[in-house]
């Protein structure tokens, strides 16, 4: 339902502005060109997305998620002290974060949801649950395959040259996001 409102609003805004700026002709052209570029873009991205999806499937199959989870244990214990006392929950939690890190979005969500379900007690989110959600919304991804596919499809010869920038940015946004959650958790005592 949200998307209906957004889409209608975008079309309405375009209509109003094209009338104000006198760009009516360009607008109707843009309708068809935009739709066409949606198909062109998807087809151009198909190869890279499918290949990387294959790599992701293989990563999950060889147990790369579990290996990574073991490396991340110390950090996770510090971030989620009470949650990590429950070994099953700790497993789901680290699997969620590691799958996100490897870009296995399809695998990450079910594990994250099962962790969130077991972390939830009552209608209010606990501090650790808030931290988990903030980590999930901040996206820490080793290889942003979709973006690389998009860049390739637009004719970029070196789609991975943005990786260092992506890593620095992801680390800062996840780190400061969790820090903000920690500070807000101290301030937001009663709710």
């Amino acid at each position, binding site marked *: 339902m949200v998307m209906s409102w957004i889409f209608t609003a975008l079309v309405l805004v375009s209509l109003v502005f094209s009338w104000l700026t006198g760009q009516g002709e360009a607008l109707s052209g843009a309708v068809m060109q935009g739709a066409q570029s*949606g198909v062109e873009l998807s087809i151009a991205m198909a190869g890279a997305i499918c290949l990387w999806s294959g790599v992701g499937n293989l990563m999950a199959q060889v147990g790369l998620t579990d290996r990574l989870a073991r490396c991340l244990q110390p950090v996770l214990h510090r971030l989620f002290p009470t949650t990590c006392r429950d070994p099953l929950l700790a497993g789901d939690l680290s699997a969620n974060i590691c799958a996100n890190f490897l870009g296995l979005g399809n695998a990450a969500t079910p594990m994250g949801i099962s962790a969130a379900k077991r972390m939830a007690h009552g209608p209010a989110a606990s501090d650790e649950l808030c931290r988990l959600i903030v980590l999930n919304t901040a996206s820490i991804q080793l290889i942003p395959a979709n973006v690389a596919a998009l860049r390739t499809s637009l004719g970029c010869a070196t789609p991975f040259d943005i990786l260092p920038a992506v890593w620095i940015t992801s680390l800062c946004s996840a780190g400061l996001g969790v820090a903000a959650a920690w500070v807000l958790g101290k301030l937001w005592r009663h709710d």
Partner: protein
Amino acid sequence: MIDYLIPLILFVVCALALGKRQNAYAALLEGAENGLRTLASILPSLILLLTAVAMLRASGAVEILSQLLCPVFSFFGIPPETALLVLIRPISGSAALAAGAELMATYGVNSPIGRTAAVMLGSTETTFYTISVYFGAAGISKTRYTIPAALFADFVGFFMASLTIRLLY
């Protein structure tokens, strides 16, 4: 180093699978097939949203939005051209992909704006969607400070994407 990262990952996962006597090729095939399914599921929304974004661009609304937000964006060193992407990123993943693709096509994939858009897309998530999926499944109605903290993380992402591109390229 980075040039070898992707081919190396490709080799290492295959070698690991072979070491465990697993069928690496079949797993790759299966994943690629799932990739096709993912693509088919986002294709219709990409068509609709690229239409909307192309209309916004042609109508001049994107430029006016950029100009309006220019003082705020410039203050933080974020290119004002990315205004639409920044505003839509936390709400809809496909719309953000459409806005990002349009930016890269308009300004060039290797232009500072094209690169900033790519880093923004690669290092942030569809915040509101993620929050609603997790809290919805867990039956949480009091989200407390999650939304402000998550939006702050997004802001840091947009800010750092602009900063790293300016400094590194």
